[in-house]
């Protein structure tokens, strides 16, 4: 058990250090980028007196390092401070955007799994044959299409064929869960397409490597059919190495996809970040970056645990965890 404690401790330490580095980067960015938050909020015909009043109110006058330290103190006690642009607590703003970003991320992750796994299995079943070439080329074309072109085309196509496809009718999950899933389906597909190509490429490679391992030959010599060998031996083994790729994809998704949110007019995290940068909102940007770093480390942490569960070789103390 002691083994696990040190493992978790080192992961937590890694999270703290990443957060420190990231917040330092944000702080450095803010001390360099031109533009002052107050004049952004009040527009060009605001009077100097007005600007001064707002700066005082938002505490923009104290030196940046002081604001950074107070933000840091707040971050570690769980209070991320208030956003200067929206006047609302940063935590509340981020949480208000999570349903969209989480919804999009997990829906597209499901799409990635549902589409890339079967296609990878089929194409690695008979490498080099028609299906393999077909999926590989489609994979790379879908990788090359810019996201917003994909989104726009999909809207045009679905609205022409199905008449109306709930674009923009974003529904709170609390109010009507199915409406929520339904309106996120198409954007999730657009987010998922490049990720599907990536997952497919990786899965196909790992299945092919597992296929010419000796244990496959052993099972064959015992009379198992190809399908049984694929599902009982090859897939579990290639899953182990696929977990790292999937965790990278998931942490990428959780960062919010700005372009799809923009085209589908979904209030996700990507757009909030762009607005925060546009309005030079230091607490909000640091809050979002804090969330991103935390998400990344948590996802990798879960990936490690999943790996330990799947692969006994990784478990330090033999059979039991």
């Amino acid at each position: 058990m002691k083994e696990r404690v040190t493992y978790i401790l080192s992961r937590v330490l890694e999270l703290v250090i990443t957060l420190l580095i990231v917040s330092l980067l944000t702080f450095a960015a803010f001390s360099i980028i031109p533009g002052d938050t107050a004049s952004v909020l009040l527009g060009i015909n605001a009077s100097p007196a007005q600007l001064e009043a707002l700066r005082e109110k938002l505490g923009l006058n104290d030196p940046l390092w002081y604001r950074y330290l107070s933000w840091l103190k707040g971050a570690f006690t769980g209070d991320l401070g208030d956003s200067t642009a929206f006047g609302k607590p940063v935590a509340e703003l981020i949480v208000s955007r999570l349903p969209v970003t989480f919804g999009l991320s997990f829906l597209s992750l499901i799409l990635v799994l549902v589409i890339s796994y079967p296609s990878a299995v089929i194409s690695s079943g008979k490498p080099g044959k028609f299906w393999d070439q077909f999926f590989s080329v489609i994979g790379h074309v879908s990788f090359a299409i810019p996201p917003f072109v994909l989104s726009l085309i999909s809207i045009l196509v679905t609205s022409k064929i199905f008449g109306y496809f709930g674009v923009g009718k974003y529904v709170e999950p609390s109010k009507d869960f199915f409406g929520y899933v339904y309106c996120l389906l198409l954007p999730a597909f657009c987010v998922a397409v490049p990720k599907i190509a990536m997952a497919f490429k990786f899965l196909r490679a790992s299945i092919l490597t597992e296929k010419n391992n000796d244990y496959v030959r052993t099972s064959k010599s015992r009379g198992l059919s190809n399908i049984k060998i694929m599902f009982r031996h090859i897939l579990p083994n290639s899953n182990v190495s696929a977990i790292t790729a999937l965790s990278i994809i998931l942490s990428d998704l959780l960062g919010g996809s700005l372009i799809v949110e923009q085209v589908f007019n979904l209030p996700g995290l990507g757009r909030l970040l762009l607005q925060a940068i546009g309005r030079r909102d230091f607490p909000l940007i640091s809050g979002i970056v804090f969330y991103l770093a935390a998400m990344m480390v948590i996802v990798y942490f879960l990936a490690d645990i999943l790996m330990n569960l799947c692969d006994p070789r990784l478990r330090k103390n033999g059979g039991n965890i």
Partner: protein
Amino acid sequence: MIYADYILEVKDLSLDFKSEGDKILNNISFNIRKGEILGLIGNSGCGKSMTALSILGLLPKDARILSGQVVFDKNDLLEKTDRQMREVRGKDIGMIFQEPYTALDPLKTVYKNLEEVLTEHEDLTREVRREMIGKMLERVGFENTGDIMKRYPHELSGGQRQRVLIAGACLLKPKLMIADEPTSSLDTVTSMSILELIKSLCAELRMSVLFISHDLSIVGNFCDRVLVMKKGNIVDSGNAFDLLYNPQNPYTAELLSNSRLDPKQLDLEFNKPSFSSECALKVTDLCAGYTSGNGFRKERKEIIHNLSFKILKGEVVGLIGSSGCGKTTLTRAICGLIRPYSGTVTDTKGKLGVVFQDPIMCLNPAHTVMWHLAEPLRANKIKMSKDELKKAAVDALVSVGLDENILGRHPSQLSGGQRQRVAIAMCLMLNPSLIIADEPLSALDTSSGARILKLLSQINKERGTSILLISHNLRVVRAATTYVLVMDNGNIVEDGPTKNVLSHPKTEVTKKLLLAETTLHMNPDRQQFMTE
């Protein structure tokens, strides 16, 4: 006990690859009687594995069966559909392979690995399956079968894994077992126990065995009858004993002599080290090992426990021990690759050369031979003009028996033996006082191995460089070294002149090593061995 009727008859089977066209097997025919152990011998590439795979119908995709029949239990296997063949595989014919390390699914316990054979062919209740597997594991030599069933493949040694595979192949009491080089990647002691296991199983289950190997001397002692194959044809057959001792067929004779590396023919002589001269290497109560664990807690795993020995200038010393006794750790400590915890090693910086076991990995694939030879000089800031450098390189190549034109070549264009010799040439560039050869022969075929040995002894003779030869092959040590150290779990248990130690072993470890060697490589002049 061998019965009269045939279990398997192969009638003029021929096979070729779609892409290449030249025949891999041209109409070979042989048969196996019930309960008989038939050996199938030949150098790599003669088609022996292909024969086995065609029996089980596991040929690679682009292999084509041109003609022939494989009659097993009165019906021709080649006619059977894939589904019908699946019933035969694992039930009537079992198979085990060369590499035990990767032949088991790493994610599944031993029990799960074996259970699939039963679930595939029979539908028995869980308890019956558990009990059958338990009995079989016991039969192949495991004591606490309950615990072994729960263990994972990576927790077992090579030998144990091969036993599990044998258990898997024999679970349903097959009529025929095909063993494709089962022992060639195991050390001598474990190989011996595996072969004995197969023999006893064959007798008990009245099972016949098709044993495939490239090492004639092992097969001689173990099989009833032997077939010798050369380029897809069966060139010689007969019972094992007379094939080994008075081989009629010239090819068989040649195979035999290569496999046994007769020291007499090599007539190696060594310069006689005078005891007064100082040592090339002095190691005094060395402790070394590996530290694992990250930043905070360093976990020390000590492998070498206060070991000391010394090598005199110009002396050739052998180091033997079963795998896992710390030989590699010792070499790394001597070369300075790992810092010892305590004890001292005389400074060998720049005065030491190493020859590694694996010929594929001993040279950097990205650079030419010339670059390799120039690298040691560059590393030690020895300034030389362009043609001086070339001359030194050519001398080194000549001294290892290679000619100039390979200077521009890449390692991928050289054979295993040639690469090993370029590595030796690299060491010679610095004119080291000591060369450590870590298992230089085990990965090479016997003839190129013999030439490497001759080269080492020549270097020792002409340049007076002392050599530390590490090997698990006692005949090589007996032929090539004057002094020998025997190691066991991190300590030297016995040392002395090679002749005395290998003829009158004092410690248990040396005796076990010698015993394994005699049973595996039956040596014609038997009388040389102690017969207590």
